[in-house]
């Protein structure tokens, strides 16, 4: 936007004309000490917990510790210019961030300011970052799926709209990759996505943004960035900021998906703040309320019923439920899920996707451990076809895991055991999927059907993926109608079953792979 000087002075003139002078009454305090982003302020007897406090030069802090004679404040951003004796004003407001449609396709910081160089965000609505989760009456049970587009997850660990599903694993096991695939797969489904990056390198965030742009998935996504170089307070607040942005869509009867990447770093930031505020340290030096910071955040991801949506929109949206699905990510150290923060978040969420570095290194990607991963509510939300076919896959893999140790004695095993091992090997192979190539329901259905009906059993293990790729391209070009029907209905009726069966049979007869 280009403005010439006369226009600028016109704008300023208008602003001055509209400026109404009012006598300002507020509570003031003075800075007593400044240490590591924590400022102690004397006075401010009327400060609220979590209130924004105004410091000189337009900087803000958040009141966290209200003590008898002083207030402990964490600074949001630079604090180098603050000196002892500076005056601090109460604003009477809790931190608010912009929300709205205009945030889609944008990259913002932890306070909702744009950082992508695409200009100001065109929205007037704001929302407090800390809100209470919807009550019991407002909620509805989860019964619609969010397709993540990954065979292994959608078939065995389904996620429903409004569910909280944890993605947990060591570093370098593909946690973010799953999240990015999930975002890419929401293209065209109307599910809005929010990706909150906490304590990450700016270079990896830039990478994520570029990948989403490449796959045309940035248009329905907001990226909230609190990188490793930002103040601990910003890293702590960023997930709540993202959550408020997601709730905006939920509350107007739409569906949204939010990814917190990752909550371990948020807990670290909170630990830093708490220790500097001299709150007593507990296990692993985390403060006593580290459970609560995650539980209150994840509780806000929910599905709300049509009446609540109608009430929240003032009657503008009728008969539509809203949902906010959360995929929090936790990074474990050396596969230790019994550390403090992982156990907390496991107990809060409705299931977890467990990723293992051993699987990842042996080439099984996504490296999902099907035995340890569960989804406590997603089953009710699964598409019929995936639900029917996924059961068989799960069973095959479970039996295979028990017998896998005997695989090396293949020649000495009885027929049925050998068959189970072979089926397991092929299913494991089939569950592999490339990054950035999410699959539709129909594509998954065809692959799973092929495995269930034993079409893979005669194949060489190494050939399974080639077979699948060839089959998918055949189905896409020759059976487009059938695929469309499956995608539209999600059914696994006798007719569809027969259709897939005969299509695969023709494919085997006519093609090579």
């Amino acid at each position, binding site marked *: 936007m280009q403005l010439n000087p006369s226009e600028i002075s016109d704008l*300023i003139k208008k*602003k*001055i004309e509209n*400026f109404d*002078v009012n*006598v*300002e*009454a*507020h*509570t*003031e*305090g003075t800075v*007593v000490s400044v240490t590591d982003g924590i400022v*102690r302020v*004397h*006075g*401010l*007897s*009327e400060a609220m917990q979590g209130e924004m406090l105004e410091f000189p030069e*337009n900087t803000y802090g958040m009141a966290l510790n209200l*003590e*008898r*004679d*002083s207030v402990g404040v964490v600074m949001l951003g630079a604090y180098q210019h603050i000196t002892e004796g500076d005056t601090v*004003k109460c604003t009477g407001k809790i931190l608010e961030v912009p929300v709205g449609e205009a945030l889609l396709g944008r990259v913002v910081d932890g306070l909702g300011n744009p950082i992508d160089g695409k200009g100001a965000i065109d929205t007037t609505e704001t929302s407090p970052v800390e809100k209470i989760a919807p009550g019991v009456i407002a909620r509805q049970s989860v019964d619609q799926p969010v397709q993540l587009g990954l065979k292994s997850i959608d078939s065995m660990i389904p996620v429903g709209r409004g569910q909280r599903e944890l993605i947990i694993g060591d570093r370098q096991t593909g946690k973010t990759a799953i999240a990015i695939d999930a975002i890419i797969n929401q293209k065209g489904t109307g599910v809005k996505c929010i990706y909150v990056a906490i304590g990450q390198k700016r270079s990896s965030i830039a990478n994520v943004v570029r990948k989403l742009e490449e796959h045309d998935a940035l248009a329905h996504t907001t990226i909230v960035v609190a990188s490793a170089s930002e103040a601990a307070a910003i890293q702590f607040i960023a997930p709540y900021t993202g959550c408020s942005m997601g709730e905006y869509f939920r509350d107007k009867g739409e569906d949204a998906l939010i990814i917190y990447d990752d909550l371990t770093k948020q807990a670290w930031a909170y630990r830093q703040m708490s220790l500097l505020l001299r709150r007593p340290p507990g296990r692993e030096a985390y403060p006593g309320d580290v459970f609560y910071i995650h539980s209150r955040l994840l509780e806000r991801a929910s599905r709300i019923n049509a009446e609540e949506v109608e009430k929240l929109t003032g009657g503008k949206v009728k008969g539509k439920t809203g949902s906010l699905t959360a995929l929090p990510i936790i990074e474990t150290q050396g596969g230790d899920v019994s550390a403090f923060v992982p156990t907390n978040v496991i107990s809060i969420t409705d299931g977890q996707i467990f990723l293992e570095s051993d699987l990842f290194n042996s080439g099984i990607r996504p490296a999902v451990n099907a035995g340890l991963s569960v989804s406590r509510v997603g089953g009710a939300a699964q598409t019929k076809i995936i639900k029917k076919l996924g059961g068989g896959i799960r069973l095959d893999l479970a039996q295979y895991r028990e017998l896998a140790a005997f695989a090396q004695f293949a020649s000495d095993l009885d027929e049925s055991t050998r068959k189970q091992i072979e089926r397991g090997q092929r299913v494991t192979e089939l569950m592999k999927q490339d990054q950035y190539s999410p699959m539709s329901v129909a594509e998954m259905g065809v692959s799973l059907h092929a495995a269930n009906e034993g079409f893979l059993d005669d194949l060489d293990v190494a050939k399974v993926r080639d077979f699948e790729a060839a089959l998918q391209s055949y189905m896409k070009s020759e059976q487009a109608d059938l695929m469309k029907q499956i995608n539209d209905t999600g059914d696994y009726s006798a007719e569809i079953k027969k259709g897939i069966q005969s299509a695969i049979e023709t494919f085997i007869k006519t093609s090579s792979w």
Partner: protein
Amino acid sequence: MSELSTLARPYAEAVFKIAVESKSTSEWSEMLGFLSVVMQDQEMVAIVANPKVSQEQLTGLVLDICQDQLKEQGVNLAKLLVENERLILAPQISELFEAYKAEHEGYVDVEITSAYALTKEEQKSFSTTLKKQLGKDVQITTSIDKSLIGGYLAKAGDKVIDGSVKGQLQQLAKKL
């Protein structure tokens, strides 16, 4: 500073209770005020912090300085503070005592800063409006600060009512 007032609070509360019981709040107020002025002296602070000065010497010194400024109970307070190594808290104790006194007697100290000297009538109208606003009697002290440009700035404890031209300009700057 904040930690010091936490330490000073029990002393201030105790002194205030004694003062109310014996109906000698203004007397105590003077005594504490004097003690606080003494303790704000740089040399005095150095002496108190000096480990070579024994408690007896210190008591003697303080009582010598204060002489007949301190009544019997005031002398006892000074001795107690020396014994507990809390003599340094005298200014905070005095400050808290004044706050308790103000609360007890039901008035607030209001500090009005203005760009130009206030006339008698202006002061009167200030005290009536502020009384209405704060719901308490007000004791006004005034000072002049040219940097406000115009208007006034009223301070009652933590509360600040900013009606100065400077404050309004800052508001405008923020809006632009």
